[in-house]
């Protein structure tokens, strides 16, 4: 049966059946569940995803010391093609897409008309008129509404495309031994296509860890054989499958933000003051005022001109070793200045680090004498700590191997 032989009612009924599977399994689920020792799952965009597979700390050190395999299939993916694809994306997103060459990736974000960030993500230019946009939230109605007046095709391919992140110092060695000859030529943000069985795999030198690493996309049907190929080649290189807990630690070290964790996306925000402009979440560098008109341009440039930006995102280093997650930030220990959105003790930096959202002028004009109040739960009693916090540049961890070309083997 196909769309030609099914009635419209049948198709509607089939599309309704998603309610029978409220939690989807990713194309790699069979492998993940076999490796899962701790059964620690969470919900990532409707998919069952591992928070941890065997031990959070060891998983973290797989990313930083060997090679870690992380299933990114639940990441929302859109395919955007057509003669106007570049012009369309240039109007949609903040950066200048005309500067994005074929077989290159850039990190970008997009806003509504008020300049409030809808999401951030990565844009892959697979061909002159062919792009893939990867992000956290779903945006199909917005993408379709944005297409008025442009000759583009837009489709969601989250379910059809399986994705893996292979990250860590031995990730290149794994790919080399898995037979991806030439992958050493990939510089950061480069893309290349390789054969896998009778299909293709798209490899990009990208990731969310601040480490040497790659992201790999294959058609859903090839997911398991592709996993097995990497897994076999990875054994001598101590490859480990990991969950989000470990990945999250490395992304904080790398200073990356997560939508609806470090900021509330404009379409998800219920409260009028929760939305954020790019300049309020550290994404001012993405805004290109010199390119043609883009969504939010007027509002963003207006806010800069009128100095009406209300918030600022900063990296903090906090004294002591207790993570300050969701702690309140104070100025002079008294005046509330903002909130910590992500915090860890960084095993690599050996520092107590945090990402915080501050209300200006704290963080912009007043950058000294900042404190965080940590509520450390100790056997049903909060131990309240007032710790000094210092604004420091992000990333907190900078690894030469992330950008070394050709990449190292260990």
């Amino acid at each position, binding site marked *: 049966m196909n769309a030609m032989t099914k009635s419209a009612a049948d198709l509607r009924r089939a599309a309704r059946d998603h309610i029978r599977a409220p939690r989807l399994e990713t194309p790699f689920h069979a492998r993940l569940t076999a490796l899962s020792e701790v059964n620690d799952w969470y919900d990532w965009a409707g998919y069952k995803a591992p928070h941890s597979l065997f031990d959070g700390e060891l998983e973290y050190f797989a990313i930083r010391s060997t090679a870690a395999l992380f299933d990114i299939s639940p990441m929302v993916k859109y395919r955007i093609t057509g003669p106007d694809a570049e012009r369309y994306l240039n109007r949609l997103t903040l950066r200048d897409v005309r500067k994005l060459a074929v077989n290159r990736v850039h990190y970008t974000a997009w806003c509504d008309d008020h300049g409030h960030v809808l999401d951030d993500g990565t844009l892959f230019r697979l061909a002159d008129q062919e792009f893939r946009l990867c992000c956290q939230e779903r945006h199909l109605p917005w993408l379709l509404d944005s297409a008025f007046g442009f000759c583009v095709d837009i489709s969601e391919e989250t379910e059809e495309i399986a994705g893996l992140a292979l990250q860590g110092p031995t990730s290149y060695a794994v790919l080399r031994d898995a037979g991806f000859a030439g992958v050493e030529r990939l510089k950061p943000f480069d893309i290349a296509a390789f054969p896998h069985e009778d299909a293709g795999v798209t490899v990009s030198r990208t990731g969310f860890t601040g480490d040497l690493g790659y992201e790999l996309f294959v058609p859903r049907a090839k997911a398991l054989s592709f996993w097995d190929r990497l897994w076999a080649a990875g054994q001598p290189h101590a490859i480990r499958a990991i969950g989000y807990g470990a990945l999250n630690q490395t992304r904080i070290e790398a200073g990356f933000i997560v939508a609806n964790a470090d900021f509330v996306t404009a379409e998800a925000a219920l409260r009028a003051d929760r939305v954020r402009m790019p300049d309020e979440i550290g994404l001012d560098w993405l805004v290109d005022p010199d390119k*043609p*008109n883009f969504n939010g341009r007027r509002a963003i440039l207006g806010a800069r001109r009128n100095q009406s930006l209300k918030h600022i995102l900063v990296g903090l280093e906090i004294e002591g070793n207790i993570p300050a997650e969701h702690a309140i930030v104070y100025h002079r220990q008294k005046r509330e200045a903002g909130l910590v959105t992500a915090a860890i003790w960084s095993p690599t930096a050996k520092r107590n680090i945090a990402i915080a959202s501050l209300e200006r002028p704290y963080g912009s004009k007043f950058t000294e004498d900042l404190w965080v109040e940590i509520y450390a739960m100790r056997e049903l009693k909060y131990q309240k700590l007032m710790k000094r916090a210092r604004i420091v540049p992000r990333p907190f961890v900078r690894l030469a191997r992330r950008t070394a070309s050709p990449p190292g083997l260990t």
Partner: protein
Amino acid sequence: MPIAAGRAASFSPTGGIATSDGTEIAAPLVVSAIHPQTTFLHLVDPAESGTGFVRSVRNVRSFGNVAKLDLALDRIPSFEGLPAEARSGRIVLVRGMEQVETAFNPAKYGEFSPDPVMEITLPSLADPALAPAGGCTLSALVQYAPYRLKAGWETGKPAFLRIVLETLERHAPGIGTSVVAASLMTPVDIEAEYNLPGGHWHHGELQADQLLVNRPTGVASGYTTPIEGLYLASAGAHPGGGISGLPGWNAARHILSGERA
């Protein structure tokens, strides 16, 4: 200068308009007395507007529900119960509010009214040059005639014209035999003839969400638009249609005042 089939090159401060024959006219300021949907969806490159604004303009309700009847008559018609000297005024064929209400009901379901309400003038009485000596022109607005007629206007139009003429005949017996020529413009015809999206003679419905500071949409109200240097002055701007000239008057005052918003 007609710019019907044109596409404005850009409405940037140094922009202007480009006409369909390729002529470019530079102007620091452009005032559009064209339907807001035509203005922002076709004359301005949508890339120059934000997605949210384009979406709001596309969702302006602008489907016409009124047909326009024009008749050439070989004599001045007589309406039952209407003194001859009153024929130069506005003649409304309606039994009461109840009929207006029930005449609208079929339009909700994509059908024209089988018992329409009509608003008639005899223009040649005021301007004899419109008709040969002894003749007369009749112009009428007929309600309701939905833009999206379920049966389609190709078959619907002759049927509706028959009903309209029968309605006239009831109030002006013998008028049918005096018709020299008849033209009925449905909203679809009005759309095609005047390049007016939806064939709505008010450039968008006059309802609460499309009035005052919401006309045509919040962001483009007050004659200023999100496109720098581009202003609105059509019936699609406050206070709407009715040939009052007020949108243009207000737009001109606003622009001359030098206010931005």
